[in-house]
């Protein structure tokens, strides 16, 4: 099975480095889409099937928490697995994210091996 990923982060360098790490890890990737904020991601989800979302929290226009709420509100998107990749370290924020049904949280900086292991686990368990 080949996967469609969606990378949501306002930093272009983070998006590009995630793309690289994922392709080097030899996942069977059909498409790795990118969005610079939550709104762009929602727009893309209107017409693309996504298997896993990599989500930053601190973004302009629509941040990661607002995006997650919108994602979980819609029946077409509420089951999509989400992996948070953010600098966020607050316990309260983590609890809030877990309530919104995220599948994993990685705190930046994230080593490529860590990312690969987590994605393998999430795809394997899906």
């Amino acid at each position, binding site marked *: 099975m080949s996967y469609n990923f969606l990378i949501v982060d306002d*930093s*272009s*360098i*983070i998006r*590009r*480095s995630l793309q*690289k790490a994922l392709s080097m890890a030899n996942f069977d990737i059909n498409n790795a889409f990118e969005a610079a904020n939550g709104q762009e991601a929602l727009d893309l989800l209107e017409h693309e099937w996504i298997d896993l979302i990599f989500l930053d929290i*601190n973004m302009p226009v629509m*941040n990661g928490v607002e995006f997650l709420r919108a994602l979980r509100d819609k029946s077409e998107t509420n089951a999509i697995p989400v992996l948070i990749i*953010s*600098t*966020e*370290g*607050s*316990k*309260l*924020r*983590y609890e809030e994210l877990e309530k919104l049904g995220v599948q994993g949280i990685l*705190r*930046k*900086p994230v*080593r490529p091996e860590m990312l690969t292991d987590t994605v393998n686990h999430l795809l394997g368990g899906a």
Partner: protein
Amino acid sequence: MSANEHPIKKVTAYVLSEWAMMLVEPGSQPETMFSQNEPFFRVSAYYQGVFDGDLTIICQEPFLNMLARNVLGADSEEVVSPEEQWDALRELANIISGNYLVEAYGVETIFDLPHFELQQTSFDGVSRYITQKMSKFNGEAAALYLADGEPLFASFDINASDYSNQTGDRR
């Protein structure tokens, strides 16, 4: 590194080696470390809320270029645009700030999104700024490193009343 080292020193070194894959060594004199002929870049994150303060990072062109290339794992043929270099610096500040807040204040405290500002600046402005920050709190809340041989300065300056309890230094 010593256990009672200021979190800004610890976190800056950690992020540079872990994220940017750089070899980090302590720096000495800012006047001799930085090159007067290269442009200076400065990024600051301003916090308001539980406390008011700012995180500032200062570097020069060779560092910026190396940072972006390292983060991307770019080979020699790969093009890294100036926008991506700026973006890498902003993200460096973002990652240092996130890790700093956890290191200094723990996971129980919640902080609002900081506001980031990027600017290109001159040797005079930078040198005065660094000297001032290095003398404040005996240079404890400032970090000066050579990362892969290139100078980098980082400081965390807090203006809120809670810091005065720790240092007795209010300005």
